[in-house]
Protein backbone atom coordinates (compact mmCIF):
# COMPACT_ATOMS: atom_id res chain seq x y z
CA UNK A 1 0.00 0.00 0.00
CA UNK A 2 1.31 3.45 -0.77
CA UNK A 3 0.18 6.56 1.01
CA UNK A 4 -0.05 9.88 -0.85
CA UNK A 5 0.46 13.42 0.32
CA UNK A 6 -3.26 14.01 -0.22
CA UNK A 7 -4.06 11.08 2.10
CA UNK A 8 -1.97 12.65 4.84
CA UNK A 9 -3.72 16.01 4.44
CA UNK A 10 -7.17 14.40 4.32
CA UNK A 11 -6.51 12.40 7.48
CA UNK A 12 -5.04 15.46 9.27
CA UNK A 13 -8.22 17.33 8.46
CA UNK A 14 -10.39 14.46 9.76
CA UNK A 15 -8.32 14.47 12.96
CA UNK A 16 -8.62 18.28 13.26
CA UNK A 17 -4.87 18.79 13.16
CA UNK A 18 -3.51 21.80 11.30
CA UNK A 19 -0.61 20.59 9.17
CA UNK A 20 1.79 22.60 7.01
CA UNK A 21 3.01 21.44 3.59
CA UNK A 22 6.42 20.72 5.08
CA UNK A 23 5.00 18.77 8.04
CA UNK A 24 2.77 16.76 5.72
CA UNK A 25 5.80 15.75 3.62
CA UNK A 26 7.72 14.62 6.71
CA UNK A 27 4.67 12.78 8.04
CA UNK A 28 4.26 11.01 4.69
CA UNK A 29 7.77 9.52 4.92
CA UNK A 30 7.35 8.40 8.55
CA UNK A 31 3.82 7.06 8.10
CA UNK A 32 4.88 5.13 5.00
CA UNK A 33 7.58 3.39 7.08
CA UNK A 34 5.04 2.50 9.75
CA UNK A 35 2.51 1.24 7.21
CA UNK A 36 5.20 -0.98 5.62
CA UNK A 37 5.48 -2.59 9.07
CA UNK A 38 1.72 -2.85 9.48
CA UNK A 39 1.34 -4.51 6.06
CA UNK A 40 2.87 -7.73 7.49
CA UNK A 41 -0.58 -8.39 9.00
CA UNK A 42 -2.12 -8.96 5.59
CA UNK A 43 -0.08 -12.13 4.98
CA UNK A 44 -2.12 -14.10 7.55
CA UNK A 45 -5.39 -15.81 6.59
CA UNK A 46 -7.82 -14.90 9.37
CA UNK A 47 -11.11 -15.77 7.65
CA UNK A 48 -12.04 -18.33 10.34
CA UNK A 49 -11.14 -16.19 13.36
CA UNK A 50 -13.52 -13.94 15.30
CA UNK A 51 -12.14 -10.53 16.32
CA UNK A 52 -11.17 -10.13 19.98
CA UNK A 53 -12.19 -6.90 21.66
CA UNK A 54 -11.69 -7.67 25.38
CA UNK A 55 -9.09 -10.03 26.78
CA UNK A 56 -11.58 -11.66 29.16
CA UNK A 57 -14.51 -11.74 26.74
CA UNK A 58 -16.72 -10.19 29.43
CA UNK A 59 -20.14 -8.71 28.80
CA UNK A 60 -20.70 -4.98 29.09
CA UNK A 61 -22.01 -4.29 32.59
CA UNK A 62 -25.35 -2.55 32.90
CA UNK A 63 -26.57 -0.35 35.73
CA UNK A 64 -29.94 1.02 36.74
CA UNK A 65 -30.92 4.26 35.03
CA UNK A 66 -30.52 6.44 38.10
CA UNK A 67 -28.73 9.74 38.75
CA UNK A 68 -25.41 9.02 40.46
CA UNK A 69 -23.46 12.22 39.79
CA UNK A 70 -23.74 15.34 41.88
CA UNK A 71 -23.69 18.80 40.27
CA UNK A 72 -20.06 19.98 40.10
CA UNK A 73 -20.42 22.37 37.18
CA UNK A 74 -18.56 25.23 38.82
CA UNK A 75 -15.65 23.02 39.79
CA UNK A 76 -15.41 21.50 36.32
CA UNK A 77 -15.74 24.85 34.57
CA UNK A 78 -12.98 26.32 36.72
CA UNK A 79 -10.44 24.56 34.46
CA UNK A 80 -12.08 25.59 31.16
CA UNK A 81 -10.29 28.02 28.81
CA UNK A 82 -13.30 30.36 28.47
CA UNK A 83 -16.64 30.34 30.30
CA UNK A 84 -19.35 32.91 30.85
CA UNK A 85 -22.55 32.61 32.88
CA UNK A 86 -22.03 28.87 33.28
CA UNK A 87 -21.53 28.33 29.53
CA UNK A 88 -18.46 27.23 27.62
CA UNK A 89 -17.52 29.88 25.07
CA UNK A 90 -16.54 28.92 21.51
CA UNK A 91 -16.38 30.92 18.26
CA UNK A 92 -19.77 31.60 16.71
CA UNK A 93 -21.03 28.62 14.66
CA UNK A 94 -24.36 30.00 13.33
CA UNK A 95 -24.62 33.55 12.01
Amino acid sequence: MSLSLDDVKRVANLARLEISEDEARKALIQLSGIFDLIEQMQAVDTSAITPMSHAQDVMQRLRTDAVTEIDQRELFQSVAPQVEAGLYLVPKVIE
Partner: protein
Amino acid sequence: MLNASLKQLSAMLAARKISSVELTSEFLKRSRALNPEYNAFITLDERTSLAQAQAADILIASGRGQPLTGIPIAQKDIFCTKGWLTTCGSKMLSNFISPYDAHVIGRFNAVAAVNIGKTNMDEFAMGSSNETSFYGPVKNPWDTAAVPGGSSGGSACAVAARMAPAATGTDTGGSIRQPAALCGISGLKPTYGLVSRYGMIAFASSLDQGGPMAKSAEDLALMLNVMAGFDARDSTSLERQPEDYTRDLEKPLDGLCIGLPKEYFVKEIDEDVARAVEAAIGQYRKLGAETVEVSLPNTKLSVPVYYVLAPAEASSNLSRFDGVRYGYRAPDYVDLNDMYRKTRAQGFGSEVKRRILIGTYVLSHGYYDAYYIQAQKLRRLMAQDFAEAFKQCDVIMGPTSPTVAFDLGERSSAPVQMYLSDAYTIAVNLAGLPAMSIPVGFGHKNRPVGLHIIGNYFAEAQMLNVAHQYQLESDWHTRMPKE
Protein backbone atom coordinates in the same frame (compact mmCIF):
# COMPACT_ATOMS: atom_id res chain seq x y z
CA MET B 1 16.62 4.18 55.06
CA LEU B 2 16.80 5.10 51.36
CA ASN B 3 17.17 1.44 50.50
CA ALA B 4 14.62 0.14 53.01
CA SER B 5 11.76 -2.03 51.75
CA LEU B 6 8.14 -0.92 52.13
CA LYS B 7 7.72 -3.60 54.81
CA GLN B 8 10.67 -2.19 56.76
CA LEU B 9 9.45 1.40 56.40
CA SER B 10 5.98 0.33 57.50
CA ALA B 11 7.41 -1.39 60.59
CA MET B 12 9.50 1.69 61.45
CA LEU B 13 6.43 3.91 61.15
CA ALA B 14 4.28 1.54 63.23
CA ALA B 15 6.95 1.33 65.94
CA ARG B 16 7.20 5.17 65.92
CA LYS B 17 10.93 4.98 65.17
CA ILE B 18 10.30 7.55 62.47
CA SER B 19 7.31 9.71 61.62
CA SER B 20 5.77 10.02 58.18
CA VAL B 21 6.67 13.73 58.22
CA GLU B 22 10.35 12.84 58.78
CA LEU B 23 10.26 10.11 56.15
CA THR B 24 8.48 12.31 53.62
CA SER B 25 10.84 15.25 54.31
CA GLU B 26 13.83 13.00 53.74
CA PHE B 27 12.59 11.81 50.33
CA LEU B 28 11.43 15.31 49.35
CA LYS B 29 14.86 16.69 50.18
CA ARG B 30 16.49 14.05 48.03
CA SER B 31 14.00 14.56 45.19
CA ARG B 32 14.58 18.33 45.22
CA ALA B 33 18.33 17.79 45.12
CA LEU B 34 18.36 15.22 42.31
CA ASN B 35 15.48 16.40 40.16
CA PRO B 36 17.33 19.21 38.33
CA GLU B 37 19.62 16.55 36.88
CA TYR B 38 17.23 13.59 36.42
CA ASN B 39 13.96 15.41 35.63
CA ALA B 40 11.96 12.54 37.13
CA PHE B 41 9.22 14.75 38.57
CA ILE B 42 7.02 17.24 36.75
CA THR B 43 5.45 18.47 40.01
CA LEU B 44 6.67 18.43 43.60
CA ASP B 45 4.31 20.04 46.11
CA GLU B 46 6.04 19.97 49.47
CA ARG B 47 3.19 21.56 51.41
CA THR B 48 0.53 19.12 50.26
CA SER B 49 2.82 16.12 50.71
CA LEU B 50 3.74 17.15 54.26
CA ALA B 51 0.09 17.83 55.14
CA GLN B 52 -0.72 14.28 54.00
CA ALA B 53 2.20 13.00 56.08
CA GLN B 54 0.88 14.81 59.16
CA ALA B 55 -2.53 13.25 58.68
CA ALA B 56 -0.88 9.84 58.30
CA ASP B 57 1.04 10.31 61.55
CA ILE B 58 -2.20 11.00 63.40
CA LEU B 59 -3.73 7.85 61.93
CA ILE B 60 -0.70 5.76 62.89
CA ALA B 61 -0.73 7.23 66.42
CA SER B 62 -4.36 6.15 66.79
CA GLY B 63 -3.40 2.59 65.85
CA ARG B 64 -5.31 2.61 62.57
CA GLY B 65 -2.34 2.52 60.21
CA GLN B 66 -2.24 0.08 57.30
CA PRO B 67 0.81 -1.31 55.48
CA LEU B 68 1.31 1.77 53.23
CA THR B 69 0.05 4.44 55.64
CA GLY B 70 2.49 7.35 55.76
CA ILE B 71 4.75 6.01 53.02
CA PRO B 72 5.61 8.47 50.22
CA ILE B 73 4.58 7.18 46.78
CA ALA B 74 5.43 8.89 43.47
CA GLN B 75 2.41 9.06 41.14
CA LYS B 76 2.74 8.95 37.37
CA ASP B 77 1.38 12.20 35.94
CA ILE B 78 -1.24 10.25 33.98
CA PHE B 79 -3.36 9.73 37.14
CA CYS B 80 -5.79 12.60 37.75
CA THR B 81 -5.06 13.89 41.25
CA LYS B 82 -7.46 16.38 42.79
CA GLY B 83 -5.85 19.79 43.30
CA TRP B 84 -2.62 18.70 41.58
CA LEU B 85 -1.35 19.71 38.18
CA THR B 86 -1.97 16.61 36.02
CA THR B 87 -0.27 17.02 32.63
CA CYS B 88 0.14 13.55 31.12
CA GLY B 89 3.47 14.92 29.88
CA SER B 90 1.69 17.19 27.38
CA LYS B 91 1.45 20.89 26.62
CA MET B 92 -2.23 20.14 26.03
CA LEU B 93 -2.72 19.62 29.80
CA SER B 94 0.07 21.93 31.00
CA ASN B 95 -2.51 24.07 32.86
CA PHE B 96 -4.82 21.26 34.04
CA ILE B 97 -5.43 21.16 37.79
CA SER B 98 -7.50 18.01 38.13
CA PRO B 99 -10.91 18.52 39.76
CA TYR B 100 -11.11 14.85 40.79
CA ASP B 101 -9.08 11.80 41.84
CA ALA B 102 -8.41 8.72 39.73
CA HIS B 103 -9.56 5.46 41.36
CA VAL B 104 -5.93 4.50 42.00
CA ILE B 105 -5.23 7.85 43.73
CA GLY B 106 -8.38 7.37 45.80
CA ARG B 107 -7.14 3.93 46.90
CA PHE B 108 -3.81 5.38 48.09
CA ASN B 109 -5.65 8.23 49.85
CA ALA B 110 -7.91 5.70 51.58
CA VAL B 111 -4.90 4.07 53.26
CA ALA B 112 -3.31 7.53 53.91
CA ALA B 113 -0.25 6.96 51.75
CA VAL B 114 1.59 10.20 50.93
CA ASN B 115 1.75 11.55 47.38
CA ILE B 116 5.35 12.72 47.03
CA GLY B 117 4.97 14.13 43.52
CA LYS B 118 3.85 13.58 39.94
CA THR B 119 6.35 11.84 37.70
CA ASN B 120 7.47 12.70 34.21
CA MET B 121 6.39 10.50 31.30
CA ASP B 122 6.24 10.29 27.53
CA GLU B 123 3.47 12.54 26.23
CA PHE B 124 0.14 10.71 26.70
CA ALA B 125 2.25 7.61 27.45
CA MET B 126 3.30 7.35 23.80
CA GLY B 127 6.96 6.47 23.75
CA SER B 128 9.63 4.07 24.94
CA SER B 129 12.33 6.55 26.00
CA ASN B 130 10.62 9.40 27.86
CA GLU B 131 11.89 11.73 25.15
CA THR B 132 8.42 12.74 23.92
CA SER B 133 7.53 14.54 27.18
CA PHE B 134 6.67 18.24 26.86
CA TYR B 135 8.68 18.63 30.08
CA GLY B 136 11.89 17.28 28.60
CA PRO B 137 13.54 13.88 28.78
CA VAL B 138 14.21 11.98 32.02
CA LYS B 139 17.77 10.74 32.54
CA ASN B 140 18.68 7.19 33.48
CA PRO B 141 20.25 7.41 36.96
CA TRP B 142 22.68 4.57 36.12
CA ASP B 143 24.09 6.58 33.22
CA THR B 144 22.79 10.06 32.44
CA ALA B 145 23.71 9.65 28.76
CA ALA B 146 21.03 6.92 28.56
CA VAL B 147 17.24 7.04 28.40
CA PRO B 148 15.28 5.63 31.38
CA GLY B 149 12.82 3.89 29.06
CA GLY B 150 9.18 4.84 28.74
CA SER B 151 6.56 5.76 29.06
CA SER B 152 6.76 5.53 32.89
CA GLY B 153 10.35 6.80 32.76
CA GLY B 154 9.97 9.34 35.58
CA SER B 155 8.54 6.71 37.95
CA ALA B 156 11.31 4.23 37.09
CA CYS B 157 13.99 6.90 37.57
CA ALA B 158 12.48 8.10 40.87
CA VAL B 159 12.53 4.57 42.33
CA ALA B 160 15.98 3.69 40.92
CA ALA B 161 17.52 6.93 42.25
CA ARG B 162 15.75 6.37 45.60
CA MET B 163 13.84 9.65 45.28
CA ALA B 164 10.73 7.67 46.30
CA PRO B 165 10.35 4.22 47.89
CA ALA B 166 7.80 3.18 45.23
CA ALA B 167 5.78 4.61 42.35
CA THR B 168 2.83 3.96 40.09
CA GLY B 169 3.03 3.42 36.37
CA THR B 170 0.80 2.48 33.46
CA ASP B 171 1.48 -0.06 30.75
CA THR B 172 -0.12 -0.08 27.29
CA GLY B 173 2.66 -1.86 25.38
CA GLY B 174 5.39 -2.20 28.00
CA SER B 175 5.41 1.21 29.69
CA ILE B 176 5.90 -0.22 33.21
CA ARG B 177 8.15 -3.18 32.39
CA GLN B 178 10.56 -1.64 29.87
CA PRO B 179 11.53 1.40 32.02
CA ALA B 180 11.73 -0.91 35.07
CA ALA B 181 14.19 -3.09 33.11
CA LEU B 182 16.22 -0.14 31.82
CA CYS B 183 16.46 1.45 35.30
CA GLY B 184 17.15 -1.77 37.24
CA ILE B 185 13.95 -1.87 39.30
CA SER B 186 10.91 -4.17 39.54
CA GLY B 187 7.60 -3.42 37.82
CA LEU B 188 4.33 -5.26 37.33
CA LYS B 189 1.57 -4.93 34.74
CA PRO B 190 -1.52 -6.66 36.16
CA THR B 191 -4.11 -8.70 34.25
CA TYR B 192 -6.24 -6.32 32.17
CA GLY B 193 -9.22 -5.24 34.27
CA LEU B 194 -7.64 -5.69 37.72
CA VAL B 195 -6.75 -2.01 38.30
CA SER B 196 -9.40 0.57 37.49
CA ARG B 197 -8.73 2.95 34.61
CA TYR B 198 -11.06 5.60 36.06
CA GLY B 199 -9.19 8.92 36.08
CA MET B 200 -6.19 7.38 34.34
CA ILE B 201 -5.88 9.50 31.20
CA ALA B 202 -6.70 7.15 28.33
CA PHE B 203 -4.27 6.18 25.58
CA ALA B 204 -5.51 2.83 24.21
CA SER B 205 -8.37 1.74 26.44
CA SER B 206 -8.37 -1.99 25.58
CA LEU B 207 -4.65 -2.23 26.47
CA ASP B 208 -4.02 0.38 29.22
CA GLN B 209 -3.44 -0.98 32.70
CA GLY B 210 -2.03 0.69 35.82
CA GLY B 211 0.45 -1.10 38.04
CA PRO B 212 3.17 -0.73 40.67
CA MET B 213 6.90 0.02 40.26
CA ALA B 214 9.25 -0.56 43.20
CA LYS B 215 12.59 -2.00 44.22
CA SER B 216 11.42 -5.57 44.90
CA ALA B 217 8.64 -8.06 44.24
CA GLU B 218 7.65 -7.93 47.90
CA ASP B 219 7.13 -4.15 47.59
CA LEU B 220 5.12 -4.66 44.39
CA ALA B 221 2.81 -7.09 46.20
CA LEU B 222 2.07 -4.53 48.93
CA MET B 223 1.43 -1.84 46.30
CA LEU B 224 -0.86 -4.10 44.26
CA ASN B 225 -2.88 -4.89 47.40
CA VAL B 226 -3.81 -1.19 47.44
CA MET B 227 -4.15 -0.58 43.68
CA ALA B 228 -6.23 -3.58 42.55
CA GLY B 229 -9.95 -3.79 43.07
CA PHE B 230 -13.31 -3.51 41.37
CA ASP B 231 -14.57 -0.06 40.36
CA ALA B 232 -17.99 0.37 38.76
CA ARG B 233 -16.81 3.60 37.08
CA ASP B 234 -14.53 1.63 34.73
CA SER B 235 -16.72 -0.49 32.45
CA THR B 236 -13.88 -3.00 31.94
CA SER B 237 -13.06 -3.36 35.66
CA LEU B 238 -13.42 -7.00 36.72
CA GLU B 239 -15.61 -8.00 39.65
CA ARG B 240 -13.48 -10.38 41.71
CA GLN B 241 -12.87 -11.21 45.36
CA PRO B 242 -10.00 -9.09 46.77
CA GLU B 243 -6.72 -11.00 47.01
CA ASP B 244 -3.68 -10.70 49.25
CA TYR B 245 -0.86 -10.59 46.71
CA THR B 246 1.76 -11.28 49.41
CA ARG B 247 0.21 -14.65 50.31
CA ASP B 248 2.45 -16.86 48.18
CA LEU B 249 5.74 -14.94 48.43
CA GLU B 250 7.44 -17.51 50.65
CA LYS B 251 6.47 -20.64 48.69
CA PRO B 252 9.44 -22.70 47.47
CA LEU B 253 9.79 -23.02 43.69
CA ASP B 254 10.22 -26.82 43.57
CA GLY B 255 8.47 -28.17 40.52
CA LEU B 256 7.82 -24.75 38.95
CA CYS B 257 7.79 -25.10 35.18
CA ILE B 258 9.24 -22.16 33.24
CA GLY B 259 8.40 -21.86 29.55
CA LEU B 260 11.08 -20.38 27.31
CA PRO B 261 9.58 -19.27 23.98
CA LYS B 262 11.94 -20.16 21.16
CA GLU B 263 10.86 -16.95 19.39
CA TYR B 264 12.22 -14.86 22.31
CA PHE B 265 15.74 -16.24 22.30
CA VAL B 266 16.87 -15.11 18.87
CA LYS B 267 19.79 -13.27 17.36
CA GLU B 268 18.07 -9.89 17.70
CA ILE B 269 18.88 -9.95 21.43
CA ASP B 270 22.12 -8.28 22.43
CA GLU B 271 24.67 -10.69 23.86
CA ASP B 272 24.96 -8.90 27.23
CA VAL B 273 21.18 -9.09 27.73
CA ALA B 274 21.07 -12.77 26.71
CA ARG B 275 23.90 -13.59 29.11
CA ALA B 276 22.21 -11.97 32.13
CA VAL B 277 18.83 -13.54 31.32
CA GLU B 278 20.36 -17.00 30.88
CA ALA B 279 22.21 -16.64 34.20
CA ALA B 280 18.93 -15.78 35.92
CA ILE B 281 17.22 -18.81 34.37
CA GLY B 282 20.17 -20.92 35.61
CA GLN B 283 19.53 -19.55 39.09
CA TYR B 284 15.87 -20.61 38.79
CA ARG B 285 16.95 -24.16 37.97
CA LYS B 286 19.03 -24.16 41.18
CA LEU B 287 15.92 -23.02 43.04
CA GLY B 288 14.11 -26.14 41.88
CA ALA B 289 12.42 -24.96 38.71
CA GLU B 290 12.52 -26.83 35.43
CA THR B 291 12.43 -25.27 31.99
CA VAL B 292 10.65 -26.30 28.83
CA GLU B 293 10.77 -24.82 25.34
CA VAL B 294 7.45 -23.37 24.22
CA SER B 295 6.41 -21.58 21.05
CA LEU B 296 4.58 -18.30 20.47
CA PRO B 297 4.51 -18.48 16.66
CA ASN B 298 2.80 -15.13 16.05
CA THR B 299 5.26 -13.07 18.12
CA LYS B 300 6.53 -11.14 15.11
CA LEU B 301 3.02 -9.86 14.39
CA SER B 302 2.67 -8.19 17.77
CA VAL B 303 4.27 -4.90 16.75
CA PRO B 304 2.22 -4.45 13.53
CA VAL B 305 -1.02 -5.38 15.34
CA TYR B 306 -0.23 -3.02 18.20
CA TYR B 307 0.50 -0.13 15.82
CA VAL B 308 -2.97 -0.50 14.37
CA LEU B 309 -4.97 -1.00 17.57
CA ALA B 310 -3.19 1.45 19.89
CA PRO B 311 -3.22 4.43 17.48
CA ALA B 312 -6.84 3.65 16.47
CA GLU B 313 -7.99 3.78 20.09
CA ALA B 314 -5.73 6.77 20.80
CA SER B 315 -7.13 8.79 17.89
CA SER B 316 -10.59 8.26 19.33
CA ASN B 317 -9.63 8.91 22.98
CA LEU B 318 -7.64 12.04 22.18
CA SER B 319 -10.47 13.62 20.21
CA ARG B 320 -11.69 14.97 23.58
CA PHE B 321 -8.84 17.51 23.61
CA ASP B 322 -10.56 20.29 21.69
CA GLY B 323 -9.72 23.41 23.71
CA VAL B 324 -13.30 23.83 24.94
CA ARG B 325 -13.72 22.22 28.38
CA TYR B 326 -10.18 21.99 29.79
CA GLY B 327 -6.54 22.21 28.86
CA TYR B 328 -4.78 24.29 26.25
CA ARG B 329 -6.53 26.53 23.71
CA ALA B 330 -4.69 28.22 20.83
CA PRO B 331 -4.51 32.02 21.28
CA ASP B 332 -5.53 32.97 17.72
CA TYR B 333 -8.10 31.42 15.38
CA VAL B 334 -10.74 32.53 12.89
CA ASP B 335 -13.58 30.09 13.55
CA LEU B 336 -14.51 26.95 15.51
CA ASN B 337 -12.86 24.50 13.13
CA ASP B 338 -9.72 26.60 13.04
CA MET B 339 -9.70 26.70 16.83
CA TYR B 340 -9.80 22.89 16.99
CA ARG B 341 -7.10 22.50 14.36
CA LYS B 342 -4.72 25.05 15.85
CA THR B 343 -5.33 23.98 19.45
CA ARG B 344 -4.51 20.37 18.61
CA ALA B 345 -1.58 21.20 16.32
CA GLN B 346 -0.01 23.39 19.02
CA GLY B 347 -1.01 21.31 22.06
CA PHE B 348 0.18 17.87 20.88
CA GLY B 349 3.79 16.88 20.22
CA SER B 350 4.98 15.13 17.07
CA GLU B 351 4.77 11.50 18.31
CA VAL B 352 1.19 12.00 19.51
CA LYS B 353 0.21 13.61 16.20
CA ARG B 354 1.86 10.77 14.30
CA ARG B 355 -0.23 8.21 16.18
CA ILE B 356 -3.43 10.22 15.80
CA LEU B 357 -2.83 10.30 12.03
CA ILE B 358 -2.20 6.52 11.88
CA GLY B 359 -5.28 5.84 13.98
CA THR B 360 -7.53 8.16 12.02
CA TYR B 361 -6.37 6.56 8.79
CA VAL B 362 -6.94 2.94 9.85
CA LEU B 363 -10.40 3.81 11.16
CA SER B 364 -11.40 5.82 8.10
CA HIS B 365 -13.96 4.70 5.56
CA GLY B 366 -12.85 1.75 3.45
CA TYR B 367 -9.90 0.73 5.61
CA TYR B 368 -11.63 -0.41 8.80
CA ASP B 369 -11.87 -4.11 7.90
CA ALA B 370 -8.42 -4.35 6.37
CA TYR B 371 -6.70 -2.84 9.40
CA TYR B 372 -8.73 -2.68 12.59
CA ILE B 373 -10.72 -5.91 12.20
CA GLN B 374 -7.70 -7.80 10.87
CA ALA B 375 -5.67 -6.61 13.89
CA GLN B 376 -8.45 -7.69 16.30
CA LYS B 377 -8.44 -11.16 14.70
CA LEU B 378 -4.66 -11.47 14.97
CA ARG B 379 -4.95 -10.38 18.57
CA ARG B 380 -7.03 -13.47 19.26
CA LEU B 381 -4.41 -15.66 17.55
CA MET B 382 -1.78 -14.22 19.86
CA ALA B 383 -3.91 -14.83 22.96
CA GLN B 384 -4.41 -18.44 21.75
CA ASP B 385 -0.62 -18.84 21.40
CA PHE B 386 -0.20 -17.93 25.05
CA ALA B 387 -3.06 -20.25 26.09
CA GLU B 388 -1.31 -23.15 24.30
CA ALA B 389 2.02 -22.30 25.93
CA PHE B 390 0.47 -22.15 29.41
CA LYS B 391 -0.71 -25.76 28.99
CA GLN B 392 2.96 -26.73 29.22
CA CYS B 393 4.31 -24.31 31.83
CA ASP B 394 3.43 -22.12 34.83
CA VAL B 395 5.22 -18.92 33.83
CA ILE B 396 7.02 -17.73 30.71
CA MET B 397 10.41 -16.00 30.84
CA GLY B 398 12.60 -14.02 28.48
CA PRO B 399 14.27 -10.64 28.22
CA THR B 400 12.08 -7.58 28.88
CA SER B 401 13.94 -5.60 26.23
CA PRO B 402 16.37 -6.86 23.57
CA THR B 403 18.95 -4.24 24.59
CA VAL B 404 20.03 -2.32 27.67
CA ALA B 405 19.11 1.38 27.84
CA PHE B 406 20.04 3.18 24.64
CA ASP B 407 21.49 6.70 24.44
CA LEU B 408 19.34 9.82 24.55
CA GLY B 409 18.63 10.88 20.98
CA GLU B 410 19.76 7.53 19.53
CA ARG B 411 16.34 6.35 18.33
CA SER B 412 14.14 9.44 18.57
CA SER B 413 14.36 10.14 14.84
CA ALA B 414 13.57 6.54 13.83
CA PRO B 415 10.08 5.68 15.10
CA VAL B 416 9.99 2.19 13.56
CA GLN B 417 13.23 1.19 15.32
CA MET B 418 11.82 2.51 18.59
CA TYR B 419 8.59 0.53 18.07
CA LEU B 420 10.41 -2.73 17.32
CA SER B 421 12.27 -2.62 20.64
CA ASP B 422 8.97 -3.31 22.42
CA ALA B 423 8.20 -6.63 20.68
CA TYR B 424 8.36 -8.79 23.86
CA THR B 425 6.22 -6.60 26.05
CA ILE B 426 3.52 -5.68 23.52
CA ALA B 427 2.20 -9.23 22.98
CA VAL B 428 1.31 -9.41 26.68
CA ASN B 429 -0.94 -6.33 26.49
CA LEU B 430 -2.63 -7.66 23.36
CA ALA B 431 -3.47 -10.89 25.21
CA GLY B 432 -4.43 -9.00 28.43
CA LEU B 433 -2.03 -11.10 30.53
CA PRO B 434 -0.09 -10.04 33.63
CA ALA B 435 3.69 -9.68 33.39
CA MET B 436 6.58 -8.18 35.27
CA SER B 437 10.22 -7.21 34.96
CA ILE B 438 12.86 -7.72 37.64
CA PRO B 439 16.54 -6.71 37.60
CA VAL B 440 18.93 -9.60 36.85
CA GLY B 441 22.28 -7.94 36.25
CA PHE B 442 24.14 -5.41 34.16
CA GLY B 443 25.23 -5.34 30.55
CA HIS B 444 26.97 -2.95 28.15
CA LYS B 445 28.29 0.20 29.89
CA ASN B 446 27.07 -1.15 33.22
CA ARG B 447 23.42 -0.52 32.30
CA PRO B 448 20.75 -2.77 33.94
CA VAL B 449 19.12 -5.85 32.37
CA GLY B 450 15.54 -6.95 33.14
CA LEU B 451 14.01 -10.43 33.18
CA HIS B 452 10.47 -10.58 31.78
CA ILE B 453 8.14 -12.92 33.70
CA ILE B 454 4.75 -13.53 32.05
CA GLY B 455 1.99 -15.25 34.01
CA ASN B 456 -1.41 -16.66 33.16
CA TYR B 457 -4.54 -14.57 33.79
CA PHE B 458 -4.82 -13.58 37.49
CA ALA B 459 -1.52 -15.30 38.35
CA GLU B 460 -0.05 -12.15 39.97
CA ALA B 461 0.50 -13.82 43.37
CA GLN B 462 2.35 -16.68 41.69
CA MET B 463 4.52 -14.36 39.57
CA LEU B 464 5.38 -12.29 42.64
CA ASN B 465 6.35 -15.52 44.43
CA VAL B 466 8.58 -16.49 41.49
CA ALA B 467 10.25 -13.05 41.51
CA HIS B 468 10.59 -12.87 45.29
CA GLN B 469 12.30 -16.26 45.57
CA TYR B 470 14.91 -15.08 43.05
CA GLN B 471 15.38 -11.83 44.94
CA LEU B 472 16.00 -13.76 48.18
CA GLU B 473 19.01 -15.31 46.41
CA SER B 474 20.27 -12.23 44.53
CA ASP B 475 21.04 -8.60 45.33
CA TRP B 476 20.48 -6.85 41.98
CA HIS B 477 17.32 -5.22 43.30
CA THR B 478 19.20 -3.67 46.24
CA ARG B 479 21.88 -2.01 44.06
CA MET B 480 21.75 1.77 43.88
CA PRO B 481 23.20 3.97 41.15
CA LYS B 482 26.03 6.31 42.18
CA GLU B 483 25.08 9.97 42.36
